[in-house]
């Protein structure tokens, strides 16, 4: 973590003393490090366990959630089971909320509920207290979901916040915010869009993106990514070589 570093453009080449690259660290980061080190010292888990779990947690994406929605759209009996007992139905797409070594979560938070949209009811999910999120199905939450900006504003001005995501709903549609402040975890089951008749489950899953399952976007044919603006480099490095980019 501490490294010596030299600036290439220092004329005198003086060395900087060893120092952390980050000048400030929050109390919570200190707490996490302290608890983790204590746990490793006491043999609760190893550093290797921690690294593997962190890397796995960061790699889980929303594919299981997309499969769940596609299955509910194509199989009415499954949809009924899903609405009856969400936690149990997740096993049918390979997610066991009670099993910590699979794609489940090692905690008590094993009450999963699906929020079914209709043409006149649109759900959107937030956790105002922290950032509770159905990680076993959707993976890591996006940065904006954890921001105080989203958490404070969605409950107060939901339609304005949704408009910022590009989702404008007519007043006749009821917007229902779910503030997941306890142990239930939620996911939106969007309305199946027009133009997807006779699609396979894979085709349907491809248009059910993470933002659709949080409720800040609607699934549409052709929309297979949560769109983010592309910012071009303002001063791209010009290669001096005639043979293309030196970075290759």
């Amino acid at each position, binding site marked *: 973590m501490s490294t010596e570093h030299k600036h290439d453009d220092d004329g005198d080449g003086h060395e900087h003393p060893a120092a952390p690259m980050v000048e400030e660290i929050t109390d919570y980061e200190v707490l996490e490090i302290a608890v983790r080190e204590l746990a490793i010292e006491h043999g609760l888990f190893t550093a290797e366990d921690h690294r593997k779990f962190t890397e796995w947690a960061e790699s889980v994406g929303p594919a299981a959630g997309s499969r769940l929605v596609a299955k509910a759209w194509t199989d009415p009996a499954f949809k009924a089971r899903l609405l009856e007992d969400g936690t149990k139905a997740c096993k049918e797409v390979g997610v066991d909320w009670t099993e*910590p070594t699979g794609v489940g979560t*090692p*905690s*008590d938070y094993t*009450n999963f*509920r699906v929020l079914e949209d209709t043409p006149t009811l649109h759900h959107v999910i937030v956790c*105002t*207290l922290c950032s509770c999120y159905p990680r076993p199905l959707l993976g890591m939450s996006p940065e904006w979901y954890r921001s105080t900006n989203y958490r404070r504003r969605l*409950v*107060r001005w*939901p*339609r304005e916040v949704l408009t910022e995501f590009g989702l404008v709903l007519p*007043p*006749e*549609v*009821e*917007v*229902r*915010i*779910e*503030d*997941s*402040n*306890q*142990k*239930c975890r939620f996911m939106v089951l969007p309305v199946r869009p027009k133009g997807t008749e006779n699609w396979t489950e894979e085709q349907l899953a491809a248009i059910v993106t993470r933002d659709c399952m949080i409720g800040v976007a609607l699934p549409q044919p052709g929309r297979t990514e949560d769109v983010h603006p592309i910012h071009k480099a303002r001063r791209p490095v010009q290669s001096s070589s005639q043979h293309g980019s030196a970075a290759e």
Partner: protein
Amino acid sequence: MQKDKTVKNDDGHTPARFKVGDRVQVKDMPNIFYTRTQNYVRGAIGTIAARTYQDLIPEDEAFNYDGRLEQYYIVRFRQKDLWEEYPFDSDTLQTELPDRWLEPVRS
């Protein structure tokens, strides 16, 4: 990591006072250090939308206290009842609260 929840009382549960459709009001109880009952719902009147599970209240569980298991409910509010001058009539908000944070409302 499932914790063992040792419960003091014989049956271990506080009776669930509400069923789906009941009108309830969120109490504004003092909380020391920790709560999961948001300020913005305190005093608001809503409707029971679902019964979820029984568990310790967050205020006990956070401090590792034993206690009775209580029924948790999803409560639905009209946005117009939560926020002044909220312009859309049909919008609602749901959140989850344990039994003791709710009081019955006479219709």
